């Protein structure tokens, strides 16, 4: 059993609180990704789980045992670092076997585990090289191998792909996914790259300023974001937020008009019935949820600023008004040219509504 439970976990550096009471439950074998912008505390939280940072208050359990004050090497975890953190004076084989040797494991068992990991990661020909003689991708594989040989209950990954080039990143992402499938270990993975989060995770934890904003499966977060932060963070390009005003509120329904194009009105079902006429709200529409004119529930007129045509799709950066800019994406917008006027359709079913505090009301 390697379930991980965080209960009201907090971290303070002097008067500054970095992690502000995180509650989280991770099941055995689950692949959990912490995402959030720089400085949101995701790496600090991972380091607290690893034992590299003290927990100011709260309780961390791994496999049911409280781990707050347990030495990092005795938590049943292994960590892969952003910069790989391979010992430069040791060969690949020595790097991979170092922790086992240090734990007093027998030579034959160390060799068996190192060779097994080398086979899984196809490191065979590199075993006697030093890290400086390896490429970025090879170093990353060695770093993963070093974690595998310890046979941990929980793998921790701290932005492991961010030092790789785009092509290698995609390759390693697939490798990590395959590895998780093969090892069936619990994985906690930190990244600021939402593509990594969406493709790898069973469960995504979105963090902002030391607070968990939302936890859920990748598509649940995409389809059902709790607030503007999560809605804007998950999805690429990010969701557009159009200023709007409630013009009518009935039981369970609300009609909103766009602030900068008041003729555009949409009627939306409400999650909560707190909205009333006159309230300022934000209409959230993902770039890929705009349609050609006439195909939605209302049409919006845009002044095209820049149009990018990629063949399979087109991105149009356009102005709703002088101070409101949005991105729309659709394969049928390939005719749009810079400084054109473009009419796009909005769909009620594909639109979100957020109140003035950023909480989702539809």
């Amino acid at each position, binding site marked *: 059993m390697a379930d991980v439970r965080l209960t009201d976990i907090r971290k303070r550096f002097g008067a500054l609180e970095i992690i502000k009471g995180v509650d989280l439950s991770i099941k055995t074998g689950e692949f959990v990704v912490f995402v959030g912008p720089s400085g949101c505390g995701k790496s600090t939280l991972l*380091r607290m789980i*690893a*034992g*590299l940072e003290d927990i100011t208050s709260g309780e961390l359990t791994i496999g049911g045992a409280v781990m707050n004050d347990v*030495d*990092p*090497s*005795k938590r049943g*975890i*292994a*960590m892969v*670092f*952003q*910069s790989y*953190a*391979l*010992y*430069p*004076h040791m060969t690949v084989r020595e790097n991979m076997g*170092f*922790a086992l040797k*240090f*734990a007093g494991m027998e030579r034959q068992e160390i060799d068996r585990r190192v060779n097994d990991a080398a086979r899984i990661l196809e490191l065979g020909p590199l075993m006697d090289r030093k890290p*400086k003689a390896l490429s970025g991708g090879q170093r990353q594989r060695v770093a993963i191998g070093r974690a595998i040989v310890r046979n941990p209950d929980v793998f921790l990954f701290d932005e492991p792909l961010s030092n790789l080039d785009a092509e290698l990143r995609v390759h390693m992402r697939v490798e990590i996914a395959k590895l998780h499938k093969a090892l069936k270990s619990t994985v906690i993975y930190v990244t600021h790259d939402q593509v990594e989060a969406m493709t790898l995770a069973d469960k995504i934890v979105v963090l902002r300023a030391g607070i968990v904003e939302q936890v859920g499966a990748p598509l649940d977060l995409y389809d059902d974001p709790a607030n503007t932060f999560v809605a804007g963070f998950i999805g690429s390009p990010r969701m557009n937020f159009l200023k709007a005003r409630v013009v009518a509120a009935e039981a369970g329904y609300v009609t909103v008009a766009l602030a900068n194009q008041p003729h555009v009105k949409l009627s939306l079902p409400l999650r909560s019935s707190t909205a009333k006429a006159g309230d300022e709200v934000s209409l959230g529409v993902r770039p890929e949820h705009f349609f050609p004119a006439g195909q939605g529930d209302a049409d919006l007129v845009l002044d095209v600023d820049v149009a990018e045509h990629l063949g399979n799709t087109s991105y149009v950066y356009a102005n709703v008004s002088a101070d409101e800019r949005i991105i729309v994406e659709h394969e049928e917008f390939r005719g749009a040219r810079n400084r054109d006027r473009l009419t796009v359709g909005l769909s009620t079913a594909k639109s979100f509504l957020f109140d003035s505090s950023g909480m989702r009301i539809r």
Partner: protein
Amino acid sequence: MTTQRFARALPDIFQYVFLGIAAFLSIFPFIWMLIGATNKNNDIIQGRLSIGSSLQDNIASFLTKVDLPLVMWNSIKIAIIGTAITMLVSSLAGYGFEMFRSKWRERIYSAILLTLMVPFAALMIPLFKMMGWGGLINTHTAVILPGIASAFIIFYFRQASKAFPTELRDAAKMDGLKEWQIFFYIYVPVMRSTYAAAFVIVFMLNWNNYLWPLIVLQSNETKTITLVISSLASSYTPNFGEVMIGVILATLPTLFVFFVMQRQFVQGMLGSVK
């Protein structure tokens, strides 16, 4: 055309002339030392710059006056033990100052750096008194002790430690290493070029140390090569041929250490962590 070419070459010419003069000023004392060792005392005093035939006489004369194995042993013992302890203590301090966060860290570090501003002349008498209280006068321990916590070497190691990747320390903690094990198993091997550079510097400082040994070492049995050369040069009728032999012998170990560690020394001075 020729004038233009000359104008273009002028900066290079200046550069080479300047470097040539600097090189000459650096090398001349060594050449003079080597030539002096082959000449008679009178020739040296008169400034003769050609190779003479008195090398063997000077060596023989030097060896009759100086117990060479003893003074070399004294010097090597002090230099090696002093260097090893200085490197250990100062690198531990530099590592500690860089790795451990504390609100007192920078204040203590600044106080240590401030000691660099205190001239040794101001410390001689208190140090001598301390050694006297400890019964260490005329021992090699008294020569070694004051230098082992060298502010400069602590500073050097702290600066070099900034290039030591903190993730290596984290990885080592995950591998189960205690702090002292991280220091010896990871930090020391990773920073070996820094150690090599520090070794050359500290070895030379210890080997060439003159003033402090002159004060605390009082019997002939404990004296180092620098003190012996000084006593040869300051006798009533000094024989500069013997002095030159002594100086050559005193130079050889530092040259040896430098050339053996030259590559690592350069890497260490550049702050390489690979």
